């Protein structure tokens, strides 16, 4: 069996694919890679379909050994990648021989590195996906040293691709559409456009922000309603939470705006301390 062995998971490493949409009515989040752009790219570089499962390694640090020859690729922020200790580089297809070890360093910017391997990580899917959902505990558990992960049948690596490493600037401008509950706030566009700071309490469930609280125009309680990935939910504190892939499927606080899908990958790489301004359109 083609497989890889986890020698060191680094800070926190999870198996992720493009998630399990379609179960929100049962309370199951979409989950999946937070930076889908980077996972898709890593998969293309290794000849996989874009939806194949890879490893999402928070702050790199991951080290794995292969039982068979594979093509591997590491994407996300630029990061030091070594094969048996020799520098190999990120954002490129890397031929790795059976028995060799691939190790990620720590990125100097950004948060999440993605490792794709030809054939994809072939652990048993749960509800149609191999993604770990950290809120509900569905999917393969966080990786530990000694874990052996099966690999699927490899495809044919493509030659050229648009290969850019993720930039993780200190200040992000994030496009949003106002609603569904922008009318619950005084000047929601102005409030969201003011500066926010990503806090250390952020995770795969949501990005928690600090700044000048949004002011409510409507008192009272909102009957629970469905929420989407990218929803900017505002609890009574007035400090927004941007829901990421493992978000709860319904919520009782108003959502002032929704982040455009194309901007979610950048939020997945926003370290605590990153400044964010939302640009409503």
């Amino acid at each position: 069996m083609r497989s890889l062995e986890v020698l060191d998971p680094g800070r926190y490493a999870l198996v992720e694919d493009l998630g399990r949409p379609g179960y929100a009515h049962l309370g199951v989040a979409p989950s999946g890679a937070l930076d889908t752009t980077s996972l898709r790219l890593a998969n293309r570089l290794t000849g996989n379909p874009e939806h194949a499962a890879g490893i999402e390694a928070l702050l790199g640090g991951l080290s794995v050994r292969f039982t068979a020859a594979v093509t591997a690729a590491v994407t996300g922020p630029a990061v030091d990648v070594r094969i048996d200790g020799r520098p190999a580089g990120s954002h490129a297809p890397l031929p790795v021989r059976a028995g060799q070890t691939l190790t990620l360093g720590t990125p100097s910017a950004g948060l999440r590195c993605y490792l794709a391997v030809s054939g994809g990580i072939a652990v048993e899917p749960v509800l149609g996906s191999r993604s770990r959902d950290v809120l509900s505990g569905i999917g393969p558990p966080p990786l530990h040293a000694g874990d052996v992960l099966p690999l699927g049948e490899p495809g044919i690596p493509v030659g050229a691709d648009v290969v850019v490493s993720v930039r993780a600037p200190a200040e992000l401008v994030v496009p949003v559409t106002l609603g569904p509950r922008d009318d619950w706030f005084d000047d929601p566009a102005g409030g969201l456009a003011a500066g926010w700071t990503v806090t250390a309490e952020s995770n795969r469930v949501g990005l928690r922000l600090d700044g000048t609280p949004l002011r409510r125009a409507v008192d009272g309680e909102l009957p629970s309603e469905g929420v989407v990935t990218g929803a900017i939910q505002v609890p009574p504190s007035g400090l927004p939470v941007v829901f990421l892939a493992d978000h709860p499927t319904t919520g009782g606080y108003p959502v002032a705006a929704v982040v455009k899908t194309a901007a979610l990958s950048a939020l997945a790489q926003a370290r605590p301390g990153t400044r964010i301004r939302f640009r409503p359109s």
Partner: protein
Amino acid sequence: MRWRRCGKDAALLDCDSLDQMRAAHATVLAARPPEVVDLVPGARSLLVVGGVAAVRALLEAADLAHPPSAEPREVTLDVRYDGEDLSLIAADAGISTDAVVDLHTGAVYTVAFTGFAPGFGYLTGLPAPLRQPRLESPRTRVPAGSVGLAGEFTGVYPRESPGGWRLLGHTSATLFDPHADPPALFAPGDRVRFRSVR
């Protein structure tokens, strides 16, 4: 009824009542346009993810006073009424604990919507004396299978979690199993009854 924008690919249908939401939900479920990815009922709303234009057209043409009537699925749960808050619930309702059990088992509930955790259903149909506020301070640990109530809802904790609902008892039924088909015992629209066992 009013549509609210919810990002580029989704929209929230704000309904005037839970009944209106159910009618809209049943109408969309019966046709299920293929572009619809997720259809998430809320307490007074329906979130449509994907296929928003198709759903809008469908609902504009529909007679929501007469929604398609599909036979709802019926689920009966055996419950041991030995919950930590049974006496509190009885005291606040001004009745005996036996009367609380009679009231809770005598009603037929409907899964209005889900959330909080996979397989957690918010069930409406709670008799008026049992509509009571949640605990002032939530428990850090509520065991799986606990049957509770809060506000207008009753429900069952699918797995151990923190929680602030008043606890009536517990069931040994499996509420959520990701490897089962369907994975959740409760889906929106299902009818639910509770039966007292010792």
